[in-house]
């Protein structure tokens, strides 16, 4: 799984042209999309989003990046994503993506 996670990180960096980002900069548990703020130590308990990452901001990708990733999934792993709702779940983080690829890849 670690090998696949690293490979996915490298592919994401390449296909999305994330200049200056290295695989080790990407937290495999951090959300790929949106601009979710990491938890601030000064936040009140009720202000904390229970789904927010503990240590890292997400990559802040957008809908065009999602389309690029869908092409990447099909091209490199033979996975066709047709249900947009499913895509939202799969692209939650690199780790979730790796688990889905592991379970569904055809090549």
């Amino acid at each position, binding site marked *: 799984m670690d090998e696949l996670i690293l490979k996915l990180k490298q592919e994401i960096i390449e296909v999305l042209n*994330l*200049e200056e*980002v290295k695989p080790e900069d990407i937290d495999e548990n951090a959300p790929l999309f949106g601009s979710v703020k990491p938890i601030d130590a000064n936040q009140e308990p009720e202000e904390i989003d229970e789904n927010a990452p503990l240590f890292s901001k997400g990559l802040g990708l957008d809908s*065009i990046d999602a389309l*690029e990733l869908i*092409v990447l999934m099909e*091209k490199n792993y033979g996975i066709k994503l047709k249900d947009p709702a499913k895509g939202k779940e799969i692209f939650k983080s690199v780790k979730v993506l790796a688990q889905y690829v592991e379970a569904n890849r055809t090549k």
Partner: protein
Amino acid sequence: MASNVYIKAVKQISAQQPLCEEWLEHPITYTEPYIGSVEPDYKLFFAPNEARRLGKILRRALLVSRQTMKETDIHNPEAIITGTGLGCIENTEFFLKDLVNEGEELLKPTYFMQSTHNTISSLIAIDAKCNGYNTTYSNKGISFECALLDAFLQMNGGKLHSALVGAYDEMTPDYFTLLKRAGYLGKEGLCFAGETSVGMMLVDNSPQTALCRVENVEICYGKPDWEYLKQCLNFESVDAVMTGLNGEAANDGIYNRECAKWFPQKPLLHYKHLFGESYTSPAFAVYASAICLSRQYIPQHLFAKPETAFKDREIKRILCYNSFENRNHSFIILSICGR
């Protein structure tokens, strides 16, 4: 009453040093037939990841536009008018190669989105949050002049007060190979094939702070009506003619013949030896002329014949004459601003 049109600022990225006028004193010379642009350090101008999705031509276009707007302090021009011969040709090639190799189902959306000609003008508009007039002219070797003419006529008629006019073209190795094979580029004596990124802000006011005035713009197809042009553009009072001489015999023959007839005794200037040949390279004629008028100085290396060079003389009017394959012709008169 017709409004005067002025060039308030102009910025370029080319085969010369980018975003500056270093070429006036220290021009870079080339012997290769195909030269890409000298790229600025984009990290100094774009936030991390801001330009990651943009192709080379889009980065250049966005940067020269931003720099032009910054220098003029006009951040929301009323019009963005762009000339491009090839548009985003690099991304078009990427897209077509994917189409051939992967079929129609695995195409990258970014290449598709950025493979149209009007991507450039629309990107600048989105970046500047400019919802006004936005047009792209893609008419081969006269694309830039069409864009300039549009802005000039609208401003002259009082419909616009500011317009960002740009000329953008990139050259890819594959496209260069095709044009070379077709006999258009890479010929003996011909200057290098280059790339164009020029952005200029046109305004109808503040001549005191402008680089020069755009007195007139004329374009024609086929044989020019020289007698009409002579009167209309007042050839007599032109101090120099900025030509598209490029070292190739057939092309230069047109300029030498027509200029000897219609501009005898007038010094001929050239710029393609510095900026290269591309569909929108005439934008460099306007750029170089505007800079020369503003600084009241024409460097020696811009004179096609060194013996015609002059200095310590007021430069009031420069005519930019471009002939594209002796089929499309453009005449742009730039003059010194009243100061």
